[in-house]
């Protein structure tokens, strides 16, 4: 049953959640709270139609958005900031697949975006030194009616 709330911010949560961490792609949203590695991150929660966005800013200034389905599974993450986030942590069990794909796609012209399109698993990484942007999502775990254009 889709949540039919329009996008709004629960500003109070930013203050309430003093020690949020990053959830992991493909895992339960509870890992947002359980994982305290990035203990200096601040967080806000944005319920949107069909999903909830957990938005965190890491100590290094990277804005990470985690998209949780109504059943509580993280089906997408996006990031934007002066450096890359710890993708090993963010992508969890998908990190190795990403790493291998990035390796095989590597070619001279090292400043071109990384676009990895596997069945069910997509990673896109762009930007330049001092400004990086990207997203990863599990295409077959996205709630129906959610377009990947919404992941940003």
């Amino acid at each position, binding site marked *: 049953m889709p949540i039919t709330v329009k996008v709004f911010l629960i500003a109070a949560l930013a203050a309430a959640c003093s020690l949020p961490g990053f959830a992991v792609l493909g895992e339960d949203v509870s890992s947002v709270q359980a994982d305290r590695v*990035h*203990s*200096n991150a601040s967080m806000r929660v944005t319920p949107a139609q069909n999903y909830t966005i957990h938005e965190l800013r890491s*100590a*290094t*200034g990277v804005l990470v958005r985690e998209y949780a389905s109504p059943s509580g599974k993280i089906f997408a993450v996006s990031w934007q900031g*002066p*450096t*890359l986030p*710890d*993708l*090993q*942590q963010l*992508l969890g069990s998908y*990190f190795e697949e*990403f*790493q291998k794909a*990035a*390796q095989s*796609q*590597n*070619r*001279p*012209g*090292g*400043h*071109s*975006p*990384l*676009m990895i*399109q596997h069945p069910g698993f997509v990673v*896109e*990484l*762009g*930007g*330049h*030194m*001092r*400004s*990086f*942007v*990207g*997203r990863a999502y599990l295409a077959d775990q996205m709630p129906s009616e959610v377009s*990947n*254009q919404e992941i*940003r």
Partner: protein
Amino acid sequence: MKFLAMMALGLTTVSLACGGGSSHKSSMLPVAASASNIQPIVVNSGPAGNYANGLFTNVTVCVPSTSECQTIDGILVDTGSFGLRLLSSGGGGALTLSLPQQKQSNGTVGECALFVSGYTWGSVNTADVMIAGEQASNVPVQVIDPTFAAVPSACKSAGVPENDSLQTLGANGILGIGPFAADCGGACDQTGSSNPGMYYECAGSSCQIAAEPVAQQVQNPVALFPSDNNGVIIQLPALTASAASLSGSMIFGIGTQSNNSLGKAKVFPVNSSGEFATTFKGQSYPAFVDSGSNALFFLNTNSTGLSTCSNSSGFYCPSSTQNLSAVTSSGSPTQTINFSIANADSLFSNRGDFVFGTLGGPNPGTFDWGLPFFFGRSVFTAIEGRGTPAGTGPFWAY
């Protein structure tokens, strides 16, 4: 083996573009024009022989305050990064000159420099850097060397590939001449979890994240020239068809000499991320100008209608060449840019071509005006905090 030219250059030597000439091989750059602030540049397949739309030049580095120097060809000219990086001979590059390593209290300084599709790892060393008739003294540079020390886990956890070989880098180094003077800035001078982990102190093969003062970070050499130090112009001729190579000029300084005035170029200030805006089909996106990106990388199939390639991963392959238009802006100054995107699989099918004006590809939510943007333009890059006749950098102008 790569070309290299050991030279014994006096520090006042000018006209370096063809210095050490006798040991250059046939791919050498055209002879420099006479002005001391003009450096020849060329788009070709590069030192690995397989680079598409790679813009290259040569750079001379010297052990500081000595005449022990080496001129290195096949250096990628990159307005999308900051600082000079040289691939060591250990990584298959040309650098054999031993440059002094930068030290901190707990060891030698290492760097993990993040690019979009890879990182470079190695030590931070000090060099006098000479390009055309310009010289910057005591410049912190990165010596890319996979054997320098074990790659720290924080560097690997970004997940992007290691680009520490000629095969993966496609160049003997990178000359980062973008709109900032240092490659990281204040964030890398912090301790604790807010430090992004670019700089390390290494004792033996073991490296720990370290705070690195901005002035000791790898520096855009242009910012350290005694004059002509407020920016760079890249000039490349228009391209009518794909080609094997394309020659042009890199001119140092903006409005400092008779050959580098802004003329009618429009000025686009950039934000603290080095970006401005581009509007495409009515929607505005973050954008940047990057000679080190080998295509026009923008948005995705959904927003452009351009399908991606079956063979050439990461590029667009429309069934016929598409003529498109976008508007670059930074507040009130705006400029319409017309461009075309052809089928990358078709472009690459001609094995002799390495210069492509119509090469494009996807890029998440961003407009990256890569090398094809530079063809037929004079593109000015003004460095942060530096005055020019059109105001203080950072800005792009064209």
